[in-house]
């Protein structure tokens, strides 16, 4: 559905978390303001004939090209925009028609403004009559409604506003938004309360490529952004949903290719390993919480030891300790320990 808010810069609350943190970005250890993008090179990986992954700084960008134009999924940090546009132009000279944001974080939406302006949209009739040239001047930016809600919320004191030009221009509130583009079915599928509460993945059905946003990465533990509505159970549900879409060959390799939010091009088997890790860690902490262990006792059990050399971190915005703590809190909240039965004496004492 098209939103029609005025084109003024509005502030947002979460924005700072997202543009600082947002911009802190999953996978990039340094916040945008501290990061030097000058030496960052775009690595273009051809995933299928018409689908490419651009890895640079921040989240991965997916580029889908065809006779009708170009769709871009996620736009990395703002300072990367020129390099991304150049990389897109090296693939195709066609018009950029759509940007899809998989979620609210700044390392996935930072280039929205510049890349949308590098594109255009098709419109005519009353639309152009009512809106004027602005109707076609930029590419559309599509995201789940919760992305817009968070981006457009009033900012907390001291936090900065996210420019209006970074907001989605078109949102959806249903499970799925789908349309035909370049002769291919494109499905934008919402997964609730996973990494955030506005996550979407984009499935290019004919090319058989799934861009997951941060619902799957190959570089770190699942980032559960609680402040933006994320939950570990939702995250695991999303990983299982990814596996429901992907189809591997008869030797669990290839088939549907997966472009993660961060990290290398993957397939279903890679997602399976990541799902296994997330589920095993969640289940361990859930069981320990059920046994009445405190957070410190749970940490002392080292529930992530087997995965730490691969995904763990003692520094940065999402440490292993934060991952364990987040799961623990959500498990305790979902399964509160039974209150101890009061003895007769206690009951008597209380009655006095």
């Amino acid at each position, binding site marked *: 559905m098209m939103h029609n808010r005025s084109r003024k810069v509005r502030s947002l609350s979460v924005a700072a978390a997202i543009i600082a943190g947002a911009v802190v970005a999953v996978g990039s250890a340094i916040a945008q303001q501290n990061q030097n993008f000058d030496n960052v090179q775009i690595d273009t*990986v051809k995933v299928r004939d018409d689908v490419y992954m651009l890895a640079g700084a921040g989240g991965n960008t997916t580029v889908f090209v065809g006779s009708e134009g170009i769709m871009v999924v996620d736009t990395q940090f703002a300072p990367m925009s020129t390099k991304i546009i150049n990389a897109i132009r090296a693939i195709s000279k066609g018009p950029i028609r759509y940007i899809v944001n998989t979620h609210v974080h700044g390392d996935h939406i930072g280039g929205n403004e510049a890349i949308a302006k590098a594109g255009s949209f098709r419109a005519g009739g009353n639309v152009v009559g009512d809106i004027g040239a602005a109707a076609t001047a930029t590419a559309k930016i599509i995201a789940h409604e919760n992305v817009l809600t968070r981006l457009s919320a009033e900012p907390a004191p001291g936090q900065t506003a996210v420019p209006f030009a970074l907001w989605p221009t078109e949102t959806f509130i249903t499970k799925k938004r789908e349309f035909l583009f370049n002769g291919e079915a494109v499905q934008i599928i919402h997964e609730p309360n996973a990494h955030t509460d506005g996550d979407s993945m984009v499935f290019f059905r004919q090319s058989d490529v799934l861009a997951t946003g941060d619902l799957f990465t190959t570089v770190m533990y699942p980032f559960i952004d609680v402040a933006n509505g994320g939950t570990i159970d939702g995250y695991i549900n999303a990983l299982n949903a990814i596996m429901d879409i992907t189809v*591997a060959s008869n030797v669990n*390799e290839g088939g549907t290719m997966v472009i993660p939010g961060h990290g*290398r091009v993957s397939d279903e088997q890679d997602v399976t390993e990541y799902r296994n890790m997330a589920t*095993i860690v969640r289940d361990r902490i859930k069981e320990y919480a059920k046994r009445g262990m405190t957070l410190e006792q749970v940490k002392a*059990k080292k529930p992530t*030891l*087997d995965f730490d050399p*691969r995904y763990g971190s003692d520094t940065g915005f999402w440490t292993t300790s934060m991952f364990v703590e987040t799961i623990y809190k959500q498990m305790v909240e979902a399964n509160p320990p039974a209150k101890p039965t009061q003895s007769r004496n206690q009951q008597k004492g209380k009655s006095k």
Partner: protein
Amino acid sequence: MFKSLGVVALATALVAGASLPAFAQAGADFSGVWQPRYHEDQPDRIPGPELTDYTGLPINDSARQYANSWDPSRLTLPEEQCRVHVSPYIYRGPLNLRIWEEKDPKTQDLIAIKHYSSTFEQTRTIYMDGRAHPGPNAPHTWMGFSTGRYDGDMLVVETTHLKKGWVRRNGVPMSDQAKMTEYMVRNGEVMTHIVVLVDPTYLTEPLVKSQDFVRSTRELPAGTWLWVCDPVLEIPDRPEGEVPAYLPGEHPFKEEYARRHQIPFIGINGGAATMYPEFQEPLKKAAIPPPLPPPQTGASRVTGAPQQGQQGR
């Protein structure tokens, strides 16, 4: 005439030499059908490793916890049933191996050496044309990306971009960060294959393994080359999304291997220190665990201490 022949010979040598930097292939020809011999590490390779047997592996604490949490029932999940052994491991098991060369038809330069393994129907390409390995964002595969060169008659192969797999198929993991160097040597009809595995995630030292193959003098029936895997639902009432695993430290069969073979518990946990002669001293001083109760006979199932037995596949 004599002089001319000399010039021709020199020219031929120069032409051959000119192609060496990119196509340095002057070693043994491994083409043919090969079958493994199992005199080395037989218990580990054919019946398969027993649960919690990590002997001889330079693993770290993370690998040990992964293995001690690994429930073999995980292989009943449809998404796990057709998983392939990665190239550092696949040559250990039963397989028929076909090797052939791919040459540039115009120059006869060796482009690649190909391996086809009957186990899991895996085709592996070892590029010999000097190309670089892909970048860090390229996909990983079971066989990985391999480039080779000859060192004399010995073929040396470097492999990156591997998927996560096994160091030992009783749950000891190999990460997708692992890299492998192989050395293949041919002595007549015998090929020795040496694997050096480096894994910064789960190994503290390189793991070296070797295995021998004998060249088959005849082609094998077509069916022996096939491995068709079709995943099915094996446990219908399993909750969706369940991933079988033991809690750390609560593996129900964690003592079985040590007790069955009368090995002190410190001897089964692996780790680099256990691979050196100095480890014999603490091993001699360690207590030997009590033996397992004798196997039950008769129609009824065993009662008492649980016995998991060896791992299939």
